[in-house]
């Protein structure tokens, strides 16, 4: 469904209100588009109409007995047959809707009024009143629901109003608790605080500010409660505690059918039961889709259409691979390597797409790089540049759906990781290529001890006893300088500090002596002092283990001390690729220069860090031509039209800038000071 966005001569205000209307309309469409919501509404409406106009609609008197037609089948006179006393089943169903709908709506309405009273007062007043009311609600919830209703019915009696009251008592505590919680949350919000501070009386705040907000969250609960009330009413009637005869009720009809016709006419068990089930189903369906709509969830089927589902490995859908020509090595897209053999990891033309609500979006577009044996390679860029996605794609850790690798190759040790199946991939993960993630607290499983997680990492790849693995796990912790290693094995992640957790992650990554470590922003979530320790540890371990490292980061200052070469990514593409020293000395892409100027830890000729104007464009909204041109101080008209290729820009260097030869960009210690975005000094 697309919307025409062309200017149709509307005033700004009109256009905005139209947009608001359209958003509402879309939401309503989504709500009604949910499986069966319209049908559910129709069914509920039908039941309400039955209840209101039973005498007009019912073809027969529901209590008119006709012994000549006992258990009569379906006929023109009796659309659903007759019961054991020859009464018309259809008419009795219609009259049954009376007590069912009356009790249902009375119950939920009454419970809502009581609960609003209790919940708003408790939440807004707080203090001892809150305590008392909430202990009362606890007491109500301590009863098994039906038992509470039965106890109240035992005292009150079984008329329609008594039943409603009994059931309302059952539903009130849950609602009251919810409303109190919401009220507490909303009370803290600024608009309510503002009202209080300008002296609005509390009752007015409750009625005008809090009530409408509470109600939106409550509608789902109401729909579900209506369904439960239908069940409860018919349940009581089934137990003989429904409205006294001769009033017809669904539960009672079922009870009679069960008592009289179970053995002789089993089909008579169907109409009343089915009616109850359908009514409950209708209310539940409305409630479920309200919940989905209000929480903004889109139906899964739509979001995931078109992406192959695979668990634990990213799906690969790429065109048939052309046999690589011998001349491929000379192509400019190929990173230059000083005549050595194949690198440990060779990523070529990697492209990754994500399925979104609006269609497929290419997040990584033709990325190529190498990581040589024992080398440290920095993968640098702002958030949204595609660096993390590229690094996760190497181990095929992106979830499918929504992710899908749509092109390229990832050769590790000469094997294309995009060709292999899950079982082979999982044997490479952790053993040959290991990974350390950004947030160690979220990345360690909170429910298992770190010992368990370390031992598991070892035993997934090596056939050793649990005891031997435990000894090795302790040694691993010792290797990352964790004191009391054997005791720490029985600690849970939440019991360790952030730095400790990242040390555990590193120990886990190195447990099987991998040849390549992919570290995805391993220090970003940590304190500055801890960051330095972790970097130091990584360097130390790399020496010891002779590891190659792909270090993903946005921190140029950090990577400058570590890496042999650096790959700079922007908007899903590699924009510069260079040995570290040369990159810092003389960047060959305006984006790199801007990153350098923006890094607080790096002294360029600019007096203080200069922020890069604008933002990284969102995937799917990349500008035409050079993707950096809207933010580039050196952009010319030609930069805005044609896509730019990665070209050779010196020994072992590449840049994706069409002005690479004419620009002299400022690096660290270079003579030209630049100020990006304002007045480009370097531009001719």
């Amino acid at each position, binding site marked *: 469904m697309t919307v025409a966005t062309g200017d149709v001569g509307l005033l700004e205000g009109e256009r905005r209100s139209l947009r608001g209307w359209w958003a509402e309309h879309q939401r309503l469409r989504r709500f009604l588009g949910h499986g069966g919501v319209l049908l559910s509404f129709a069914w509920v409406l039908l039941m309400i109409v039955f209840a209101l106009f039973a005498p007009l609609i019912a073809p027969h008197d529901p209590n008119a007995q006709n012994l000549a037609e006992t258990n009569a089948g379906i006929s023109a006179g009796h659309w659903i047959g007759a019961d054991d006393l020859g009464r018309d089943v259809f008419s009795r169903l219609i009259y049954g809707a009376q007590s069912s709908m009356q009790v249902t709506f009375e119950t939920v309405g009454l419970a809502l009024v009581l609960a609003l009273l209790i919940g708003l007062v408790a939440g807004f007043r707080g203090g001892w009143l809150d305590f008392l009311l909430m*202990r*009362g609600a*606890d*007491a109500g919830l*301590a*009863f*098994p*629901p*039906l*038992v*509470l209703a*039965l*106890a109240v*019915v*035992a*005292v009150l009696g079984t008329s329609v109003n008594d039943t409603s009251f009994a059931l309302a008592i059952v539903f009130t505590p849950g609602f009251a608790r919810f409303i109190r919680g919401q009220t507490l949350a909303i009370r803290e919000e600024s608009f309510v605080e503002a009202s209080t501070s300008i002296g609005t009386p509390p009752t007015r705040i409750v009625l005008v500010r809090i009530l409408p907000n509470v109600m939106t969250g409550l509608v789902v609960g109401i729909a579900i409660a209506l*369904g439960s009330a239908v069940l409860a009413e*018919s*349940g009581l009637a*089934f*137990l003989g*505690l429904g409205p006294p005869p001769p009033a017809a009720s669904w*539960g009672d009809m079922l009870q009679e059918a069960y008592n009289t016709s*179970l053995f002789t006419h*089993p089909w008579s*068990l169907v109409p*009343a*039961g089915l009616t*109850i*089930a359908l009514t*409950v*189903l209708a209310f*539940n*369906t409305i409630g479920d889709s309200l919940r989905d709509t209000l929480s903004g969830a889109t139906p899964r*089927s739509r979001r*995931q259409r078109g992406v192959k*589902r695979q668990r*634990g490995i990213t799906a690969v859908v790429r065109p048939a691979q052309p046999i690589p020509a011998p001349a491929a090595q000379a192509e400019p897209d190929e990173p230059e390597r000083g005549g050595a053999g194949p690198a440990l990891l060779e990523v070529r033309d990697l492209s990754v797409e994500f399925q979104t609500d609006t269609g497929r979006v290419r997040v990584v577009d033709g990325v190529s790089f190498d990581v040589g044996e024992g080398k440290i390679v920095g993968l640098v860029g702002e958030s949204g540049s595609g660096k993390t996605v590229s690094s996760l794609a190497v*181990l095929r*850790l992106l979830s499918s759906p929504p992710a899908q690798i749509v092109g390229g190759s990832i050769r590790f040790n000469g094997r294309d990781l995009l060709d292999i199946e*899950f079982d082979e991939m*999982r044997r490479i*993960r*952790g*053993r040959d290529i*290991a*990974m350390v*993630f950004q947030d160690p607290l*979220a*990345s*360690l*499983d909170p*429910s298992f*001890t770190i010992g368990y997680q370390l031992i*598991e990492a070892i035993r*997934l*790849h090596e056939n050793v006893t649990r005891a031997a693995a435990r000894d090795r796990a302790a040694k691993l912790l010792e290797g990352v300088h964790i004191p009391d290693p054997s005791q720490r094995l029985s600690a*849970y992640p*939440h019991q360790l500090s952030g730095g400790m957790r990242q040390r555990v992650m590193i120990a886990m990554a190195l*447990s099987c002596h991998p040849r390549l470590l992919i570290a995805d922003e391993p220090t970003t979530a940590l304190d500055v002092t801890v960051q330095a320790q972790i970097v130091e540890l990584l360097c130390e371990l790399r020496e010891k283990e002779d590891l190659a490292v792909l270090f993903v980061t946005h921190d140029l200052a950090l990577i400058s001390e570590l890496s042999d070469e650096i790959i700079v990514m922007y908007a899903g593409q590699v924009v510069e690729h260079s040995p570290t020293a040369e990159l810092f000395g003389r960047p060959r892409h305006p984006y790199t220069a801007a990153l350098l100027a923006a890094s607080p830890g790096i002294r360029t000729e600019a007096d203080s860090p200069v922020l890069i104007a604008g933002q990284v464009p969102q995937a799917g909204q990349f500008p035409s031509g050079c993707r950096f041109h809207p933010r580039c101080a050196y952009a010319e008209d030609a930069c805005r039209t044609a896509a730019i290729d990665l070209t050779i820009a010196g020994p072992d260097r590449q840049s994706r800038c069409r002005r690479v030869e004419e620009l002299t960009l400022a690096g660290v210690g270079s003579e030209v000071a630049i100020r990006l975005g304002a007045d480009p000094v370097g531009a001719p």
Partner: protein
Amino acid sequence: MGRLVLRRLLSIIPVLLIVSFAIFLLLALVPGDPAVTLAGGLTATPAEIARVRAQLHLNDPLMVQYWHWLTAAVRGNLGTSISTGQSVGSQIAARFPVTFGLVVASAIIALVVGVPLGIVSGVRPGGSLDSGARSFSTLGLAVPSFWLAILLVSVFAVHWRIFPSTGYTAISASFTGWLKDVILPAITLGVGVGATLARQLRASLIDALDTPYVRTAWAKGGTRRSVLLRHAFKNASMPVVTVFGVQIGYLLGGAVIVEQIFSFPGLGTYMLSGITDHDLPVVQGVAIIFVLFQMAMSLLVDISYGYLNPKVRVA
């Protein structure tokens, strides 16, 4: 862990006081003079009314009456049934195992149905097994237990004659007899709860599979089995346990209906007979036992939650 249990036990006390007072008030709330009602309504003779008044301490102030009732109840004396004259406490003691067995069997059915369904649909949401499982749980929530019971009876007991339609064999008399009698009632009760568990497990599995720690589990070379059934499942089962605790109340309430349909001599049928006979001491006694039952079960659930969640256990 011990402290967690202790705290939970202490928090029960105020709730229990309020509940017991509310249950005690059932008598006082009866419109008119409860003694007249309890002695048999308008036909009661003044002597009978006086006897009931004395028996229930109705001449004392309300709080004194409550004290009498409470101290007696704590000692296990829940009064005598007005209609049969039997001790309510001993009746409850005799009937409790019936209901307990039914609820435990239903809980097992709920887990046996709910957990595999939840896993199947949570691991592959949108797949054909998922749609099947989801339709099943949607239906399981909508179909009234008493209708399901009747349908099960008419198919398995009347049509195929595999299981008895009604009746109860004590587990001490014959285990297989008990099993045969309890299976249909337990399915009736367990399916709805199982459907709820499946929905919750599906949702929390989908969430868990999207977490960084599951990505770590894949990244270290985890097999599908180890990642899905160990890391994702253990974390996903925590909210399921909470939901299960709430659902136990529905099992207990549903037991009243199911016992009635299958003629089980349990607490539910006892309470219903109390209601139809206006035998309020019976209603009071059974109600308070139901509340205690539910509290004990949810305490058990809380303890198992503490076992699953190390943050609760250690804190």
